[in-house]
């Protein structure tokens, strides 16, 4: 058992899978440049020393192009792990992700596989509007893409390994404040997601959520950073005698619906917390599922705690207002009693 950050856990997952399978390779911007950062958040730092620059393949700044190259490489028998420095840059690659990666299996009548992993950092971190967005809902909406969002080091390693072995395109959302990146890439305001990671090999299967805290009074569903916000809120609520159950789905597609529905059937209340903005968001989808499938167990309306419908702002006072706070989660829960 070793203690490691999420960045270290992701790096170890990549290292192990690259050792295990010569078809696995990394492709992206600034991932293996000697003297560089090892990707924007240090995840691939040092991997080129072991695997060389053919398997840690630095690209031009061509997000659409290298995502397309990865799609072709995946169809051709390799297993690319694609790195975009910031999730916001995925918009440049949308055609390849949505029209090619996600549809090729379907269009071929199930004969083609696209085993591609796309790693994308998300989250507002004092960088203003274009290096900050949480993009999960854009991608959970696309049939043919799997989506994971690990919030602990254990899950980061186990889920990424499963994603690399999956025969479908998998988008991995990683939160910048949870990486635990060190040195000059350390993030201001980061949360320590250092956690225990077993020495022996393990996988976390896609599609299985976890209960992070058990409780009988209300279910709070979060993902990435908002799992931690929900856990902190739960501690404060406990002081007022409200026991919150906190669920981390870990995989957004395919979603572990049963875990959420069972919890709501027990607690009778649901609050969904996410950093994405409200309209058309993932929280609304979770609310809809529960309203359709567990309505008669609900004792109160469903609440969404999301970012407002604005771009992520820059000024720290505005950013702190934008990202759902512990206080907002506490207030949302209390409004249900």
């Amino acid at each position, binding site marked *: 058992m070793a203690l490691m950050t999420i960045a270290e856990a992701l790096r170890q997952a990549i290292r192990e899978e690259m050792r295990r399978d010569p*078809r696995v*390779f990394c492709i992206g911007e600034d991932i293996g440049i000697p003297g560089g950062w090892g990707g924007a958040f240090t995840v691939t730092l040092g991997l080129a020393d072991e695997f060389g620059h*053919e398997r840690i393949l630095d*690209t*031009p700044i*061509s997000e*659409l*192009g*290298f*995502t*397309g*190259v*990865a*799609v*072709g*490489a*995946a*169809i*051709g*028998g*390799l297993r*690319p792990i694609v790195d975009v420095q910031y999730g916001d840059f995925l918009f440049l690659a949308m*055609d*390849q992700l949505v*029209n*090619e990666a996600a549809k*090729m*299996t*379907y*269009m*071929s*009548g*199930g*004969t*083609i*596989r*696209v085993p591609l992993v796309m790693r994308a950092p998300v989250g507002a971190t004092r960088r203003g509007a274009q290096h900050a967005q949480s993009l999960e809902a854009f991608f959970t909406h696309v*049939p*043919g893409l*799997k989506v994971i969002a690990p919030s602990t080091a254990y899950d980061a390693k186990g889920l990424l390994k499963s994603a690399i072995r999956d*025969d*479908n395109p998998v988008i991995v959302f990683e939160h910048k404040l949870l990486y635990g990146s060190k040195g000059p890439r350390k993030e201001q305001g980061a949360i320590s997601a250092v956690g225990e990671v077993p020495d022996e090999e393990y996988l976390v299967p896609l599609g299985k959520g976890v209960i992070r805290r058990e409780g009988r009074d209300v279910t709070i569903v979060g993902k990435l950073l908002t799992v931690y916000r929900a856990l902190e809120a739960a501690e404060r609520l406990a002081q007022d005698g409200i026991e919150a159950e906190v669920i981390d789905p870990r995989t957004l597609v395919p979603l572990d619906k049963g875990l959420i529905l069972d919890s709501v059937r027990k607690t009778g209340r649901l609050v969904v917390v996410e950093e994405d903005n409200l309209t058309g968001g993932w929280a609304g989808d979770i609310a809809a599922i529960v309203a359709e499938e567990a309505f008669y167990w609900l004792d109160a309306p469903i609440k969404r705690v999301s970012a407002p419908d604005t771009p992520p702002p820059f000024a720290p006072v505005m950013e702190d207002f934008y990202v759902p706070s512990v206080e907002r989660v506490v207030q949302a829960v209390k409004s249900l009693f």
Partner: protein
Amino acid sequence: MPESQIPLLDMYRTMLTIRRFEERCNYLFMQGRIPSTLHLYIGQEAVAVGVCAHLRKDDYMLSTHRPHGHAIAKGVSLRSIMAELHAKATGCCKGKGGSMHVGDMSVGMLPAIAIVGANIPVAAGLALAAKRLGTDRVAVAFFGDGAANEGAFHEGLNMAAIWNLPVVYVCENNFYGASTHFSKVFKIANIADRTEAYGMPGMVVDGMDVEAVYQAAGEAIARARRGEGPTLIECKTYRFVGHSRSDPRTYRSREEEAEWQARDPIPHTAQRLIALGLTNAAALADIEREVEAAIDDAVAFAESSPLPEPTDTLKHVFYEA
């Protein structure tokens, strides 16, 4: 290359198959027996055939929204293409593709990518895989003049060049992106001129001359197979028909069409074959009958095939081993 080594008769047969196949598609479409739209390749057959004559079954080929000719030239079966156009369960994409996405990976053709230019980086990726896995496979991507103004063209050609990938880009310059003429959207005479900016060889070829296409493609594909990197071949060509089935072609003159139709590669190749003493009128008539019979068979197969189940919609969203 000596003329005796050019498989001109085989190429003639394939060009004729494409032409007759699409004429039949058009007829069936007008009768309402084929749903959807059709982007016909009529007039451009020499390009697909001259290039694909060099490809092995295990080489990759990527096409566009106008893919029937490429598919036939790469060896996708007439039956499975026709069944796909009929939206049948026996189609090459099991009814999930349609006209714009025909393909069959068992003969190296991806489902055609109908987003203009999007197949350019994907072809580079297939070439990267072929190279990394130690094979001598090559990837060929066909696209139109319009694709050369997409960002994917710039990004894909640049990466193919910097990584020296075994890919051949074949730009079919038919002078119209839907209704927009080449001269309105290009300040240069040749798309191939852009290759210099990527450090890649570029060639301009008469796309109405199957022998010229065959020669150019042979050089480019051999170079790629030897590990010497990518090439772009620009084939000047013309679609004799509209962009799609609803296009009345009011943006171009009948005189311009007549000039290009006078250079129709199929009768020209027939004349060349006779002039070279490689065939005679009776043998050509036999080919015509054989081609028609193969298309009759494909149509009969398609028409007698079952429709997919409505609930087949739900299958193949994800790959299952």
